[in-house]
Structure formats: structure tokens, C-alpha cells
């Protein structure tokens, strides 16, 4: 039978994170955002709650949950704030997951306990100044010299890569040429603080201001040969897998932002009076909010379904791309409408909707632009 209700353990988790976001994040995050400061105390609390270990087994210090538990958490966090949500998303789905999925037993033992507990954060360095959507066009190189990889190149827009608690960046690099002339791409674990690995200062961003995004450069940066993640030449396949999953996570995060817009708008529509009546009594406002609710509802169904296929081990590439496409657009549309409903106050940074507006746009860009999602969907349709 079709049943869209959450099993009780997921519902309990959702409620716990909802409470946490309301009581611990909402009251303080505006200040961090304003100052473009990374919210270390919030991250520490999330670590203590196990939010950074959700999809990992207990033997690695995780919570023994799954990717859907992570998605629900991202949704509830993003309902209040996206910087905090993307910090968790990048740390788990992009930072720790590749190590858990592709790493050797030694790599897992070395890194996972500190990553799943939130003591350290992991980052994933794929994008470069000259390659984003066409990730395979990356130019960073790594050559094996004796028992060391020597890395040279630049990475752009890497989340979580320069915090005080960043432990490592998994770097995608060209490690040779295949017999057919194509690039051989591999992933290499580079611990923070390795000589030759420089983290630039934070970008000045339109949104996600309390999250950490940096440009990274590698100049004859040497790491042990054993830092190769999984097999040599598997880098491309690894990041495709990582990004397919990541799309479902970003969809969940987008749904959270879109829901936050509905929450705030309903509240404000009950409060704000113009021309002698609450603005919520005007059909123009009611219909706007009804459309917002319809968008967030359908987007949520899309990501739930993509996640359920992923958990059952079925192909989910198309569903993930659809979920990411529709939910990031729902977030953008809802942020625009919520800001409109708030009038001038919506343009003020001190109101959550002001933050939602600034945070929504990146959702149509990061982890595959909307155009890339459409490419993936068309490809799945045999076009």
C-alpha cells in the first residue's frame, strides 16, 4: 500500500531537529550571517546531537541512520537557516560520505570517527575556476613521485574547506591519460595544513553568509600515496555517485527554505494590517501563499520519492535530478513571493525572509545547475 506517513523514528528525529532549529539556531543565526561568521557553537551542538553522523553506521561513530534521516534534518534546518544546513550537507554528503563509500579500512578508521562526530569537517573539491558544470574538464593534476602524490592546481567555491575545524579536502585531480586519450581522474585526500595547500580568504557571497566557502590552491603539495581515495582512475565515477546523492540532499534543503517562506508568510499575513484589514484577508495574498504551499508540497513528494528509491537501491538519477530541479525552483519562487508579502520588511536582513531571498538563488546553481538537471533528465529519457 502507498503510505506517505513518516515512520515514528523519522518523525521523532524531524521534531527534534525542528525544536533544535527553533531554539538554538533561530535566535542567534542572524548575527553570524550579518558578520559573515562561521557558527562554531551551533556546529558543536549539532555534532553532540549526532547530526553529522546520521547516515553512517555506529562502528564509524555514526548514528546508524540513513540518507533520508539526513535529508529530513537538512529540511528542518533550512526551514530556519540555510548556512547551517549547507554546512551539515557538505560535511556529511560531500565530506564524509566519499570516504565511507570509497575509502580503505585505514582511511575510514583514520577519518570517520572525527567527521561523524562533528569534531572535524570534511570538504569536497571538484569545481575549479575554469570548470563547474563540465566537471570532467578539471585541470588540477596529481603525479605520483615515489610514494607521494604531488598536487598542483586551483579549486573554486569549496564549502567547509577553510574553517578552524576542517580536517581534509577530497580533491579531484587528473592523474594520467587513459589509453583512449581521455583524462584519468582520481580523488586524493588532502589533510588541512599540508604544506603547499593554501586556503584563500572567504569569498564575499550574496547568500549562505554564515557558511564557509573558499578558493584553494595547491603548489607542489605532497601527500602520501596511501591518500588515494579508492581506486586510481575512479574519480569521475565517484563524484557522479556523490553528486547524484547530493542532489537529493540539496532538494531537501531547498524544500526546507521553501517551507520556511510559507511559515513566515502565514504568520505575517495574520499580523500585518493595511487598509483596515489583515493582509491575509486579501485574496491576492491568500493565493500567493496557496501557490507557495502547493510548490513546497509537490517538491517534498519529489525528494521523498527520490530518497526512497535511493534507499531501496534502485536507479534514482532521474528522480534526483527532478527533485533538485523542482525544489530549488520552489525555493526561489517562494523566497520571491515571501519577500513580496513582507513588503519593505522583506528587504531587511534582520527578517528571516530577507535571508531566504539571498539564500535561495544558489540552490539553482550548486551541485549541478538547473540546466545540468535538465540535461540529466533528458539523457535519462534517451535524448
Amino acid at each position, binding site marked *: 500500500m502507498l503510505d506517505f506517513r513518516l515512520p515514528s523514528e523519522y518523525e521523532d528525529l524531524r521534531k527534534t531537529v525542528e525544536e533544535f532549529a527553533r531554539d538554538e539556531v533561530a535566535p542567534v543565526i542572524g548575527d553570524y550571517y550579518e558578520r559573515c561568521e562561521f557558527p562554531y557553537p551551533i556546529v558543536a551542538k549539532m555534532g553532540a546531537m549526532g547530526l553529522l553522523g546520521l547516515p553512517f553506521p*555506529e562502528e564509524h561513530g555514526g548514528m546508524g541512520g540513513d540518507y533520508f534521516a539526513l535529508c529530513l534534518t537538512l529540511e528542518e534546518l533550512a526551514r530556519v537557516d540555510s548556512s547551517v544546513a549547507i554546512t551539515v550537507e557538505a560535511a556529511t554528503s560531500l565530506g564524509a560520505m566519499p570516504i565511507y563509500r570509497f575509502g580503505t579500512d585505514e582511511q575510514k578508521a583514520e577519518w570517520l570517527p572525527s567527521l561523524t562526530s562533528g569534531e572535524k569537517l570534511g570538504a569536497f573539491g571538484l569545481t575549479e575556476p575554469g570548470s563547474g558544470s563540465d566537471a570532467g574538464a578539471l585541470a588540477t593534476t596529481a603525479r605520483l613521485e615515489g610514494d607521494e602524490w604531488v598536487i598542483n592546481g586551483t579549486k573554486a567555491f569549496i564549502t567547509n574547506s577553510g574553517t578552524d575545524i576542517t580536517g581534509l579536502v577530497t580533491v579531484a585531480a587528473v592523474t594520467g591519460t587513459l589509453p583512449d586519450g581521455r583524462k584519468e581522474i582520481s580523488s586524493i585526500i588532502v589533510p588541512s595544513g599540508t604544506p603547499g595547500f593554501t586556503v584563500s580568504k572567504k569569498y564575499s557571497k550574496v547568500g549562505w553568509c554564515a557558511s564557509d566557502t573558499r578558493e584553494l590552491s595547491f603548489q607542489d603539495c605532497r601527500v602520501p600515496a596511501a591518500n588515494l581515495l579508492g581506486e586510481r582512475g575512479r574519480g569521475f565515477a565517484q563524484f557522479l555517485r556523490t553528486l547524484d546523492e547530493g542532489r537529493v540532499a540539496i532538494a531537501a534543503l531547498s524544500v526546507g527554505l521553501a517551507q520556511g517562506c510559507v511559515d513566515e508568510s502565514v504568520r505575517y499575513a495574520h499580523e500585518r494590517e493595511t487598509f483596515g484589514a489583515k493582509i491575509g484577508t486579501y485574496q491576492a495574498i491568500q493565493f500567493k501563499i496557496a501557490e507557495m504551499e502547493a510548490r513546497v508540497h509537490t517538491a517534498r513528494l519529489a525528494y521523498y520519492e527520490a530518497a526512497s528509491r535511493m534507499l531501496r537501491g534502485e536507479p534514482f538519477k532521474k528522480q534526483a535530478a527532478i527533485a533538485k530541479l523542482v525544489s530549488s525552483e520552489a525555493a526561489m519562487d517562494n523566497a520571491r513571493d515571501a519577500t513580496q508579502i513582507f513588503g519593505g520588511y522583506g528587504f531587511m536582513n534582520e527578517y528571516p525572509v530577507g535571508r531566504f531571498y539571498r539564500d535561495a538563488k544558489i540552490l539553482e546553481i550548486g551541485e549541478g545547475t538547473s540546466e545540468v538537471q535538465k540535461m540529466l533528465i533528458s539523457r535519462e529519457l534517451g535524448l
Partner: protein
Amino acid sequence: MNIVVLVKQVPDTWSERKLTDADHTLDRESADAVLDEINERAVEEALQLQEAHGGEVTVIAMGPDRATDAIRKALSMGADKAIHVSDEALHGSDVLATAKVLAKAIGTVENVDLVIAGNEATDGRAGAVPAILAELLGLPQVTQLRKVTVEGTTIKGERETDEGVAFLEASLPAVVSVTEKINEPRYPSFKGIMAAKKKPVSTVTVADLGIDASEVGLSGAYTQVLEAAPKPPRSAGQRVEDGGDGGSKIAEFLVGQKLI
């Protein structure tokens, strides 16, 4: 050290709370029900003591069926097992009956060293259950604590009141109640939430505890609520302009209200 924590499910302070028209008891259906925050702190304190001294933590709740949600939350924070006293006959119980039932329920747990309660429930706000309970159990009561330590068979506590801080000591077993200053309760982890599903919860009735149904509930209460009216909306208040005599004007106002 075996600890019993008394937890109550109460209407969420974030939602609107009201009384039923029928019998003036709290309308528990109309509001979201949550584990009382003061009881989250009581559970937290029990877990910290358990981490330091070992033993088992049992939660006991008296309340309707859906109080299982509050119980599950306490279990997902880390408590080991639970007793849920659930019985139609309990509807409308007063403080005495509540304490009597809780005392009997505590009696079913073996080798209890410490009972921890909140100092005051956010709905009933009697602030009396822990003290009555201690009398019924014949145990020392160490109430209103902002700090608790256990050394051997001695419990030490700091009671903070308007008059100052009292340093209390009693020998175990004892009944303790804690204030909101005691600690910051942990959030349950997903691991804790999953584990809670497998923890034992025994549901018992008033009869199971050897109590006659007529001693509890509305009929067994020593007092009766005859009438209830919603609190009138707050009036606008009075503005005092300070033209040099602001202080005496405020004093006059307070005298008028018989406050000084």
C-alpha cells in the same frame, strides 16, 4: 545507583492552552503535547548521575495514552525503561491523588536510590507533588535544587530561593526536585531515538497498583473547580511621566495597589 525520574506530558507552551467546558480540567486535546521541559532537565540530571555512578534510570509518567510520546522522548534521551500509569479513572486527579499513584508506581521499581522530579509542572503548577510524594514514601525531600551531587550514600544539593542559597544534605534514598537552572538537557540523537523503540515500557492501571479507583480522579479530589473564566485581556497600563517626581508617583501607584 537506581534512579526514578517523574515525567509529565504537558501542553506545549508554544500553543494556546485552555480548560474544557465540561469539567474545567485542562483541555489536553486542543494543544500539542510535549514532555515538560523541566522534566527534560530532570531526565538529564538522572543521566548525568548515571554516567558518573552507574545504575538504571526508570521514567514514570501518569497520563493519558498519548503520554507515551513524552515517555519515548525521555527514553530516546537515554533512560533505560519506563512505567506508564494510564487509566480513565485518573482524569481530574488532584495533587494528593497524583502523588499517591506515583508513590505506588515507584514502589514497583526495585532498589530505588533516588527519585528526581521537576520542581513545578508548567500546566498544573502546584509545585507540591515532590514534597507530598516524599512524605508518602517516608523519604527525605531535597527540593528546588539548582545543583545536585551524590557522594557515597549522601546527596547534596543547592536550593536557590529569593532569600538566598541553602546547602542541603540528605542520605539516600531521597526525593529531589530540580529547577530550570539545573542543566541544559541534551537533544536525543537518532541512535537514541532508534534504541528507545526497543526499550521496555510497562503500562499499568490504578488497579494494578492496588489503588481503588474512587480514591483518584475528579470524584476522589479534595477540592472541586466550580467555575473557570479566561483571564481578562491585559489593560493598557498607566503611563507615568517623569517630571522629577516619577519615583514618588510610582510609589503612590504601588501603595494604591497594596503592593507596598
